[in-house]
């Protein structure tokens, strides 16, 4: 049953995400509104987006604490996700195995950064003022995911081999539950459930900033309105 659920969750996530991206891609940008100074070439724009996505360039200019916390969280999460390939790939790609120790460190950094971001929301007057319940819940959810993951590494080891074989046998036991023999197994279930929750709400929430940033006209437009007439269909008339 777990595997069954996992596939439903993945379907919602993938289709939901793609449909939002489709909406962004389909909606026209009738006027050139790049925030200048902006690159005057396509390769320049690619570099601008790259630095925004990888280094959080604009955020660095505006808020050093949010930048540090945000970059630490996203970077660490990237390493943790790569390390998770070991649970999904067989045979394991050669580059993943040596990442084991970095993955663990990254897990700790990720949880630390999330705690910092949560604290920041609670402590700084202006950030607190703008935060909705949902903003806190996302951080708590991510923190719970990171925390349950770390706990499995350090304290409550689940019987991962049994669980894996159960999940691979999904079609034989659509209604069956995975073996629960230890606190670690419970922790694993919790971890999986929380990740599922995150993936389900992802396409319908602010987490869409992940794909949306590539469609931000102030960042992805080439600054060449005089050189090249920019036209979108609805504005043609």
């Amino acid at each position, binding site marked *: 049953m777990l595997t069954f659920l996992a596939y439903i969750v993945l379907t919602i996530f993938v289709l939901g995400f793609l449909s*939002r991206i489709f*909406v*962004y891609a389909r*909606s*026209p*940008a*009738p*006027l*050139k*509104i*790049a*925030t*200048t*100074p*902006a*690159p*005057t070439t396509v390769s320049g724009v690619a570099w601008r987006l790259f630095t*925004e996505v990888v280094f*959080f360039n*604009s*955020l660095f*200019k*505006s*808020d050093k604490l*949010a930048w540090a916390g*945000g970059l630490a969280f996203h970077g660490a999460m990237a390493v943790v996700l790569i390390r998770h390939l070991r649970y999904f790939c067989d045979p394991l790609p050669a580059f993943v195995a040596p990442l084991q120790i970095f993955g663990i460190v990254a897990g700790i950094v990720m949880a630390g950064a999330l705690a910092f971001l949560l604290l*920041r929301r609670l402590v*700084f*007057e*202006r*950030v607190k*003022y*703008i*935060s*909705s*319940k*949902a*903003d806190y*819940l996302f951080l708590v959810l991510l923190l719970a995911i990171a925390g349950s993951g770390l706990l499995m590494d350090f304290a409550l080891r689940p019987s991962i081999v049994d669980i894996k074989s159960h999940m691979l046998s999904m079609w034989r036991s659509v209604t069956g539950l995975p073996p629960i023999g230890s606190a670690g197994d419970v922790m694993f279930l919790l971890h999986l459930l929380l990740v599922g929750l995150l993936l389900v*709400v992802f396409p*319908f*929430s*602010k987490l*869409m*900033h992940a794909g*949306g*940033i590539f*469609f*931000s*006209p*102030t*960042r992805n437009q080439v*600054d060449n*309105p*005089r050189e*090249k*007439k920019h*036209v979108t269909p*609805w*504005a043609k008339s």
Partner: protein
Amino acid sequence: MADYHVPVVGDDIKTPDLKTGTMAHLHPYPATAKHMDPMGFPGERVENWQQKGIEKLGELLKKYRSLQVYLDICVKCGACTDKCHYYLGTQDPNNMPVMRAELMRSVYRRYFTPAGKLVPGLVNAADFDEETLGKWFTYFHQCSQCRRCSVFCPFGIDTAEITMAAREIMNAIGVGHKYSVEIIGKVHQIGNNLGIPKPALKGTLEFLEEEILDSTGYDVRIPLDQEGADVLLVAPSADFFSEPHIQSLMGYAKVFHQAGISFTISSYASEAANFGMFIGSYDQQKKIAKRVVEQARDLKVKRLVVGECGHAWRVAYAFWNTLNGPFDFLDPRYPAPQHICEFTHDLLNRGALTLDKEANDSFRVTFHDSCNVARATRMGPKAGGQFEIPRDLIRASCNHYVDMDEDTIREKTFCCGGGGGLLTDELMDLRIRGVQPRVTALKRVMESDKVNFMALICAICKAQFTKVLPMYGIPMEMVGGVHQLVSNAIQLGVKKGVV
């Protein structure tokens, strides 16, 4: 004159504590049927305004990727909360860019997202009701669309796009702001924002020609509606009547005269400004800009040059080609349109102008980057030319130049407090408070470097500063155009013509 609250100016721009509702009282004058009807907007609030407003929002979401993406992807990181001059000057949390956008985002969530429909309380979704509309009318008229927040947002979220959409939605349900709508009406009726008819325009240009003759001894012409001139000069109409704008107009004329390039002003398109942008109306922007293109064709000019006006330059530089281009009937050797600073800079580089810096020796100059020029346009071939070209002109025209604090210039510049359709008396309280960050940086160079002249290239900035700086004890004569300095320094008759 009413008693205004003039904020205290310290040594540094400090982020103040939140104080809820400090600007909730400031209501712009609503437009009446007299202003709205000619524009095709409902003359009064339509009966089913909630439904119509939500429909309009849905329509705009499909028309503008910026709006759709920006309503979706804000993570509320808070990086923008201390970036808006109106927040810094008023302490009102609704003037933090994220909260201003939230006024629309909460409505968007309620009607267009599953979370807002299912659990409105959890995600701060709000009905489009009387209270929300009231806040929209108030706070979307406390944004000058300066885009400073978009520079600092990690996703480039541009509050100006959201403000424009909000104003467009409000106009669609008959809730307009008198100032902008009335002015657009004047452009269509008379040809310019100030409503100057042709005879008056002709008179003032003749008067200025005499003025230049008296002060320099040179017969510098400012032609009107002259067919076959090389250049159509499109200046903000304030350049014809207001101080210090008029000084720049005389500066442009001297540059044309000295370069030996014929030019004309058009009475039909006697306005560079385009308030269609302020109300977010694509159609109005296009219609207003069309007057210029028609005149360029009718007068058979070879080039289009735009005078010192910030948002006008944005519309001209970034939108004209899209709205009414291509400009393939103009001389392809020059950018179309060209900014007057680009024009003068080019002539200077080619050796066509002689500038005597000593003529401005009584001035110690700084430069205020106007938001639309700085963050929405370019000059010259290189990114950032919009910062360097005006500064080059100033440095070529005077001996003493100094920049203000680097966090308040170039793309990080602070708005004058009067842009985006807010240059109206009923919003004076906002305008005075909104200029505070700029005044702080200015006062510092006044003290450290004895600066006594702030040059700039925007008609709205000029009008705003001359009005509000005196409230901070700074004389209004301290403000003027870049071409005012050029006008003082230019040596007429030294050599003539350009190859």
